[in-house]
């Protein structure tokens, strides 16, 4: 999905080296989602589907306004609606949060990814998936403290919000921010977005939201998607936004000591495989495997159109 022809890569998954940075002026960008200005209109969802040429399934109603019901390989952003009775004021609040990739400064997905170059982080902070390098192992799903990436059953690749890296590369903001009618989604340099957030927080405090604040969790080094929340002290009420997100210790271990150990294990496995081949013979693809693959391909053809049909 990545379009990094004019963006500089800062980090690259499963790689010891990073391509040299030609320019060194890249500012960190950020998307600011002001939950207190969001009216839940889903224009961001529509814009995301349209800009990225994605086709979401026409589902059903399950008794809530959230549609689709979760992030999917085609829906990279989603409005999540929470009905909450505020115990302090006795007032009812309808909390609406646009969910999607947070573009962490310290991205758990990238750390967990074993495929060289399948996940990159640009110098401007955007974390992007490079589909042609993705092996569909879903380690990124485990590595993400926000439960964002989704694996396509069609091509076994991981998908998530790109922060419209293709648009940002040519000086545009993300499609969702462009479509947002109330400017609840803003895009700019991270510093500018923090300043903007300060003004909004002052306003919210003046309206009685004494715990209003900016969600920019430091457990993942800060994020390049930030929220203005009326209740920063309770982020979990916004459809389970984690209070103190951390990269899973398993991922840290995997990238630390376990990596060396694993390298040894891989070597051992290779030796084992060699003996297996010489003694038992090569692995065969069974008929069931072939059928499953054919079914998946067919479903895929129905669910997700080819680029040619999308253009119609």
């Amino acid at each position, binding site marked *: 999905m990545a379009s990094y022809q004019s963006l500089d890569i800062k980090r690259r998954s499963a790689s010891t080296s990073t391509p040299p940075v030609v320019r060194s002026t890249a500012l960190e960008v950020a998307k600011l989602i002001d939950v207190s200005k969001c*009216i839940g*209109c889903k224009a961001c969802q*529509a814009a995301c589907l349209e800009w990225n040429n994605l086709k979401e399934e026409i589902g059903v*109603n399950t008794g809530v306004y959230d549609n689709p019901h979760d992030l999917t390989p085609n829906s990279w952003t989603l409005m999540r609606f929470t009905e909450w009775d505020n115990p302090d004021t006795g007032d009812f609040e*309808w909390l*609406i949060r646009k969910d999607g990739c947070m573009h962490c400064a310290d991205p758990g997905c990238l750390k967990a990814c074993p495929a060289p170059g399948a996940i990159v982080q640009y110098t401007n902070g955007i974390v992007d998936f490079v589909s042609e390098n993705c092996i569909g192992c879903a380690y990124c799903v485990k590595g993400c403290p926000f439960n964002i990436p989704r694996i396509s059953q069609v091509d076994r690749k991981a998908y998530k919000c790109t922060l419209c890296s293709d648009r940002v590369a040519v000086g545009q903001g993300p499609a969702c921010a462009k479509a947002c009618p*109330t400017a609840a989604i803003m895009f700019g340099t991270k510093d500018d977005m923090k300043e903007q957030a300060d003004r909004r927080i002052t306003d919210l405090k003046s309206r009685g939201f004494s715990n209003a604040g900016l969600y920019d969790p430091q457990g993942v080094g800060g994020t390049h998607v930030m929220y203005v929340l009326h209740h920063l002290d309770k982020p979990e009420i916004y459809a389970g936004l984690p209070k103190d997100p951390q990269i899973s210790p398993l991922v840290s271990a995997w990238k630390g000591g376990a990596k060396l150990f694993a390298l040894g294990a891989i070597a051992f496995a290779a030796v084992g495989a060699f003996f297996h081949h010489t003694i038992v013979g090569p692995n065969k693809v069974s008929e069931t495997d072939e059928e499953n693959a054919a079914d998946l391909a067919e479903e895929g053809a129905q669910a997700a159109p080819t680029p040619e049909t999308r253009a119609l």
Partner: protein
Amino acid sequence: MTNAWGDIKHTDLVVVMGGNAAEAHPCGFKWVTEAKANRGAKLIVVDPRFTRTASVADFYCPIRPGTDIAFLGGVINYLLSNDKIQHDYVKAFTNASYLVKPEFGWSEGLFTGYNEEKRDYDKSSWDYQLDEQGYAKVDDTLQDPRCVFQLMKQHFAVYTPEMVEKICGSPKDKFLKVAQMISECSTPTKTMTSMYALGWTQHSKGAQNIRGMAMIQLLLGNIGVRGGGMNALRGHSNIQGLTDLGLLSNMLPGYMNLPVEKEVDFNAYMSTRGFKPLRPGQTSFWQNYKKFFVSFQKSMWGDKATAENNWAFDWLPKLDVTYDILRTFELMNQGKITGYFCQGFNPLMTFPNRGKITSGLSKLKFLVTMDPLDTETSRFWENHGEFNDVNSADIQTEVFQLPTSCFAEDEGSIVNSGRWLQWHNAAVSPPGEAKSDVWIMAGLHLRIKELYLKEGGAFPDPIVNLRWPYAIPEEPAAEELARENNGQALADVTDPTDPTKVLVQKGKLLDSFAQMKDDGSTAGFCWIYAGSYTEAGNQMARRDTWDPGDTGLAPKWAWAWPANRRILYNRASSDKNGKPWDPSRKLVYWTGERWGGYDVPDYGPTVKPEQSVGPFIMNPEGVARLFTRGMMRDGPFPSHYEPFEAPVANAIAPKIKGNPAARIFKADLEALGSADKFPYVATSYRLTEHFHQWTKHVWVNAALQPEFFVEISEELAKEKGIVKGGWVRVWSNRGSIKAKAVVTKRIRPLMVDGKPTHVVGIPQHWGFMGRAKKGHNPNSLTPFVGDANIETPEYKAFLVNIEPTSGPATS
């Protein structure tokens, strides 16, 4: 809208009641977020449901559907009894001081002059006391018991906070908080804006709902000022243009009226349109009526409309009754209408009591639909299982389905809520065989004309003499039509004070309606559009964002009627002496020589303040009407009436059922349900993911809100054993539907007269055509009764019952 979208950013308080701006007008709602972010404005939402607008509001107050007048009456009572009004404004700019006839009165829910049999009033007592010269008598002290101000006090005294709570189910403390926040805007430097939509219009007393708030805005001095006004959010992208051009059965373009049967000739028609000023020295602008009317007739029939034939007055239809949609379908059911042209309309889904619509369409000989989409109405004869359970073999109606282009496929102007005419170009060509509506109508006209010319007929004159001056007669161009709307000089137009001075040469386009004449020397199809397309070019296509004073009015962006005026009654933004009420929000003020400022004055540009000409120049009084005289069918003041289907009796007039002046046909009266069988109050509405029944044809919108549902409280769900996401059946005395249940905290039972009252919310967007899941629609249930004045159906308040059920059999 009296004001403009961009002006909302200047307000201090936004009241969204009778609408759901964030949900239904998300793009316009940005101006509310601007006002909140930059001015610290507050937002109040009063609605039966905690809406998307409520989710970003500072204060939310619930209300029972159909009881808005009681709530607004309560606010009026609060303002008057706590003396929270802008005195100077009320005294100088409203009819508060006018004396009303002694015989006028109100008792037991009725004004004087009621005729029960006709369901109508003799309105002769609803008027001012006049002096010998025919001027209204006034009492500037506002103390005379017959002055409008005192009558108002008396009329609204019944709406105490306790009564509001009893009728509306709005908790007293919440109502008082709303009233108090509103009352803060009675100072000249604080303004409130009212944003409303179909939540107020779609009631049997919709027009009076709006009157209620208009009166509050006048008491607060908020009409004609920046950040104030009565702002109707138009629901359909060119519904403002539709009303401007008179596309209602009883209207002509520019808010002129079609003659009625008793107006047998032109003189009789004009005799009631003198608009003599009701106060000395007042401007009464409608005195120009004849100029606009004659120019319209010249635009219609050109040289064939002459002084000798009274400008072809006899060629206009004369109404016996109004042919609103309800009457039209009633007549279809009676077999009296046998052919129907349905253009850009989907009656099967959008008109009330679907059963009656289906039976009406089934009795037609022919139905023509003109629409960009494959609508349910076009397919009313087709069986779609539970979703359209008809027997096609029984239906003999011949249906002609004509595909038309949509707005993105043709050029022209669209008028927004703020009266801005914005020109747009075609982005793509229409698909397949789709043609523009103009092409279809021109083809019809030319063929019918040919038949008349060939075969004669009872009355061929209006058709064969119609002026048709287009370069391609088969498809008049949008620009040609726009120039015709604007108007042109048919002979040299000279200055009335100096006949040697030519203002507009023969054949040239007019600059403004001030140049229109009643002697046949000008033509103009829609006088309020004069100035939109002049010799200087297409003003609607202007795209200059220049905005002096950061008013949000952008006077060189597109063009607003009338006369590019962005805020109506803007003279009222300054006090009697011409000084702005709020120096930080100047709009139009007296410069010493003339009226200047940021907007085109809605006033004589050089009329001095000491001449005391009122700012409301469209009224012969020159002031705004707190008391409407005989202008409205159901009373000169708004009064609380229950919806035709209500869970309780009228608390202030127990004998009155519904709005006593609203028309209801016999069979529809019999089809009303009662609270013992239908104990729950239902209301219908729109969701932001969809636009009417259009966007269910679009994949993305269908994915974002795929399936029909109804919304109920957790309490009602528990009582009825309904589970979130489960199927329910909802039925009224007219029909039954199935839906998924959204069980929510956003709807809560209301305590009405001490009894818990449940509300069932039913969104509007599903049907049996398009990409979204097939579904039902609230209009299988809604009652066939309309507003007393304009017959907008009562979609917003009716009675239903509900139970859990199994899902529909899907085909």
